[in-house]
């Protein structure tokens, strides 16, 4: 759909090769191309603004004017800056509790991929020798509990689900998600599960009531990780949403979902930049095995379409 940034920069620099050094006007043209590429990739406007300024400064410096191939040098700078924001070279794994059970709480907008991720995490942890328990604390979305039970079965992990939530004729959900989450952790402790994964209902950043409920779940269960699940297809709303969840549940890490699509995923950059929380994992499909560590360098290339 969009010409790649490399293509565009190469054409910007076309007439320049012979001269071998960049004028300020060349740099401005370059920064405009970079800005456009980032916007096309859904990077948040304030992040683009800040990023473009930083790149401009570095590009004006000696490191570019002296370079043999200024175009490539600029791309390299852009790439480096992106990777740095996205978390540099190494990503940490899950923080495990010294005194089990480790509690992992999932949070995010509606439809982001939380329940699916619960199954993926369970499978991933089982393969590492853990004994995860899933906790059904979404009593709101129709058949969320049923969905988690199916997912748990597929992962081979038990599900703590004392209430069926909204299902069948039961229009009004029974049970309190906070109480379920708390009891889930107690159950894990007594049955000697070393990890608890709490699935919660999707909620909007602006929904004060539901955000307070999420905070109550957090306070009641004292999670070792609160993972914010965000859809890679999200656009400019990423900032408002990430900030709302950072403030609301103070998440400790991010999982980027649906990366198997063809979205460029600029939201990754926005979320990492505005919240400063690490992106830990990527969800890359509907199957429970479609789950991997997040790679900042691959993400940078993807955002830049290189």
């Amino acid at each position, binding site marked *: 759909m969009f010409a790649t940034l490399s293509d565009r920069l190469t054409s910007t620099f076309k007439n320049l090769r012979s001269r071998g050094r960049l004028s300020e006007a060349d740099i401005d043209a370059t920064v405009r191309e970079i800005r456009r590429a980032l*916007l096309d*990739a*859904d990077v948040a*406007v304030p992040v683009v603004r800040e990023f473009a300024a930083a790149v401009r400064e570095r590009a004006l410096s000696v490191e570019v004017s002296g370079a043999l191939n200024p175009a490539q040098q600029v791309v390299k700078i852009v790439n480096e800056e992106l990777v740095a924001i996205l978390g540099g070279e190494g990503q940490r794994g899950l923080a495990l509790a010294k005194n089990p059970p480790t509690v992992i709480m999932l949070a995010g907008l509606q*439809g*982001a991929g939380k329940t699916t991720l619960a199954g993926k995490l369970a499978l991933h942890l089982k393969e590492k020798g853990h004994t995860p328990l899933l906790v059904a604390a979404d009593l709101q979305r*129709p058949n969320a509990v*049923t969905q988690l039970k199916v997912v748990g079965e597929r992962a081979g992990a038990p599900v703590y689900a004392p209430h069926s939530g909204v299902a069948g004729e039961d229009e009004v959900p029974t049970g309190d998600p906070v109480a379920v989450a708390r009891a889930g952790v107690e159950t894990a402790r007594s049955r000697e599960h070393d990890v608890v994964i709490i699935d919660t209902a999707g909620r909007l950043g602006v929904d004060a009531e539901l955000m307070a409920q999420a905070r109550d779940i957090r306070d009641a269960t004292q999670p070792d990780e609160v993972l914010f699940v965000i859809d890679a297809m999200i656009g400019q*709303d990423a900032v408002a949403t990430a900030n709302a969840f950072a403030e609301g549940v103070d998440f400790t890490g991010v999982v980027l979902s649906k990366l198997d699509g*063809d979205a460029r995923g600029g939201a990754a950059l926005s979320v990492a930049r505005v919240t400063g929380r690490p992106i830990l994992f990527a969800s890359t499909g509907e199957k429970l095995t479609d789950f991997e560590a997040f790679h900042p360098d691959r993400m940078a290339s993807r955002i830049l379409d290189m």
Partner: protein
Amino acid sequence: LSRDHLSEDDWDELEETLLLADVGAGPSAGLIDALRTQVRVHGVSDPVQVRAMLRSALLDLVDPSLDRSLATDPTLGEDGARVPSVVLVVGVNGTGKTTTVGKLARVLVAEGSDVVLGAADTFRAAAADQLETWGSRVGVPVVRSHKDGADPAAVAFDAVRHGRTEDVDVVLVDTAGRLQNKSGLMDELGKIRRVIEKEAPLREVLLVLDATTGQNGLMQARVFGEVAGVTGIVLTKLDGTAKGGIVVAVQRELGVPVKLVGLGEGPDDLAPFEPEAFVDGLLGD
């Protein structure tokens, strides 16, 4: 040409308003360039007036004159028998398809229509159960398979067949979420469509777009439009902070209008799309 009296910062701010609403870099630049020309030609200097001009340009793009009604009235077959209107609901994962089917059934029932739902998502965990809950919520039957991974086209066919034999007015078919770059899943959608059309004409194919979606929405529209023959867009989750500006480009790309908006998770949270309110939302007014 006289220069306009807005500063570069003013123009940047206007453009950022559009960008922040997910209108997209290309369309936003286009709108602002056209506006700058217009402002110069007409010698406008009042920023409030410039904003009003932008609003009107956006409204032109969204086009209030488009027919946004749904074709949900039954038709007559060659044999003179009534054939239900079939509505197919498609889109990427998690946008709100199943919820929209439930809400739409509620609206149709309230209008006095006889409705049946088809659970042609046989893939996602508990998808058919979720639709059944919606069915009992709004009091309409659901045709489903109890086998995981059953052929979704067969379920869709059964639902439409059931709709015909029971002489209902509308059959709403829910499908599994699928990313447009998965060709196997897109082929499956093409098959669902063809199989339905053997039994009854497909009157509406609704593409459900999540308002939080950024520029990828355009790719979604392109591929779903090709494979499924989209006739209308449903813009969900407008109750959040997202503006849904990508639909401006999507409407233009597909040549079909946004017909409905989703404003929450409850059965009554579906509304007709209102161009003026939408544009005001984009501009943050």
